[in-house]
């Protein structure tokens, strides 16, 4: 058990270090922004003195390291700054919208994982036959499809033509369907490819031959043994896909007018609301890192070797 604990601690420390690095990058990035954040907050008709005062208030003239430290300090208090556009707390704005994005990311990952694993297993079982080629095609097409185009196509089909699902907003449970599917397609394609190749590899292993030699049903061979062994790399991929999904979420939220932080990010960039941009990117990075650690933890459930030896 101690092996597991040390492993966990090591991962957490690495994550924190990375996160600190991300923050550093963000703070530095703000230095290089075209335009003056203080001016944006002050408004177009502000006098230079007013702008200068805001600069001092925001501490924009301080050195990078001071700003870095201040950001971390604020962060510890749950304070991510104040939006240049609305004047509201960045943290509260993000907090209000975060659940929507999480919802989208979660269901997207779920759809991607389930569909991807199913396709991958089917392709591996029927290797080199028609089914396999079809799944391969779906895979390649899946990673070539722009999320925003797919979203628009789905809207055209389901909302405009068939009128079965809503085109935008987050008002009803059904409105979750199209956005989740859109954001999950890319993930599905990658997971399917990975599942297929891992399953093929596992099915060629000696222990699979042993199970067959025992006279066990093929069903057991595939699901109880091969798939379970394949799960570790597949899980890695699903975890990695979460990061890609977050990027896709930004675009999907725009297409579907989904009230998550992705859309907020886009609006903030257009409006030059740098504190907000900073805050949202930080939250994205944090989410991604958390998912990575959780994925690592899940390995221990699946693979007893990791459990005992870390």
């Amino acid at each position: 058990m101690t092996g597991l604990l040390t492993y966990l601690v090591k991962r957490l420390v690495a994550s924190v270090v990375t996160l600190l690095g991300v923050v550093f990058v963000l703070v530095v990035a703000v230095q290089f922004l075209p335009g003056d954040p203080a001016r944006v907050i002050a408004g177009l008709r502000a006098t230079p003195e007013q702008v200068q005062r805001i600069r001092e208030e925001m501490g924009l003239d301080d050195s990078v390291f001071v700003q870095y430290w201040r950001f971390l300090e604020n962060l510890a208090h749950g304070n991510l700054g104040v939006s240049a556009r609305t004047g509201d707390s960045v943290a509260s704005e993000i907090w209000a919208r975060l659940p929507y994005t999480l919802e989208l990311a979660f269901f997207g990952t779920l759809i991607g994982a389930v569909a991807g694993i199913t396709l991958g297993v089917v392709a591996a079982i029927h290797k080199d036959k028609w089914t396999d080629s079809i799944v391969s095609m779906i895979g390649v097409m899946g990673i070539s499809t722009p999320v925003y185009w797919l979203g628009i196509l789905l809207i055209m089909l389901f909302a405009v033509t068939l009128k079965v699902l809503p085109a935008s907003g987050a008002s009803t449970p059904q409105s979750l369907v199209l956005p989740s599917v859109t954001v999950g397609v890319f993930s599905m394609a990658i997971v399917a490819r990975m599942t297929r190749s891992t399953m093929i590899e596992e099915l060629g292993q000696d222990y699979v031959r042993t199970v067959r030699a025992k006279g066990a049903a093929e069903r057991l061979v595939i699901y109880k043994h091969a798939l379970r062994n394949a799960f570790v790399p597949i899980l890695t991929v699903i975890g990695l896909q979460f990061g890609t999904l977050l990027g896709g979420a930004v675009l999907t939220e725009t297409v579907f007018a989904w009230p998550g932080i992705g859309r907020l990010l886009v609006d903030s960039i257009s409006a030059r609301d740098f504190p907000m941009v900073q805050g949202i990117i930080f939250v994205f990075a944090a989410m991604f890192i958390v998912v990575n650690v959780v994925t690592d933890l899940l390995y221990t459930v699946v693979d007893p070797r990791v459990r005992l030896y870390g």
Partner: protein
Amino acid sequence: MTEPVLSIRDLSVSFRTHTGVVRAVDKVSFDVYPGETLGVVGESGSGKSVTMLSLLGLIPPTARFDISGQALFKGRDLLQLPPKELREIRGRDIALVPQDPMTCLDPLFTVGNQVGEAVRAHQRMPKRALRRRVVELLGLVGFPQPERQYDRYPHQYSGGMRQRAMIAMGIANDPSLIIADEPTTALDVTIQAQIMEVLKAAQREAHASLVLITHDLGLIAEMADRVVVMYAGHVVEAGRVETIFQEPRHPYTLGLMGSLPQAGGNDRWLRPIPGTPPDPMRPPPGCPFHPRCLLARGRGICRTALPALEQIGMADHLSACHFRDEVAQETPTLLSQAAEIT
């Protein structure tokens, strides 16, 4: 003469690959009798494993291969059976103890679970009875404190212990035939003897015939009643173990005997057979052994005609060599010639 448990006739297996057709097994025929131990000897690539795997339908389904011939097990042709029936025979009537114990167990499940799976594949049993049976089997193969071993994982075991677990799986359903594919190759010399003891005990326990596939002649000498010698996918000689060892009637077999280290003898140096096994995609015409054969002496028939496996001398001794009668007289000459070359 009792009926054979397994009767293989003209079994051929070839694989279709991008670069050509590989004739792994070429018209192989032999019998296995009840209760006996049959050794199948040959170098790597001689087709001995493929022969047995093809009987059980265990060649990976993704490989493209063709099988022809007949394999009668208790009157039924294994090669013609529908998959479902073949699956019933696997693990119940015919058991396989595969080659490499390190990779043959699923790392994610306990040993007890996996041995239990062998039982459950063919018998319905309530959980408690199943556990008891598994513990019993583990005890049979020599695990100390078998109760505790049930919940351990393969990676917690040494190679020898894993091999015992594989044997336990093999005898779980009292098979009539056990096929052991290189059971000791991957193990330490010190463990090998132990494992062979376990295998012998298992064979006795199940009242089974044992087919022992190996390239270790010492093992054959100790364990086998009869021997089949394979080369390049063909059977070149077959007979009782004493006969084969004392009076080999095929140049290849002779070469194998000559390459045995003689304890305390003059022959300190191993005499490997000169040359290498043929490329399975481009087998030589005529006798497969002729390029390396010292008996051929350039005679044409060796190059053109495939020798048939025919009886020689006493009953039950078969050899596939055009000059099988000469082998006995030529033995000393051939051995010293081999000594000169190497």
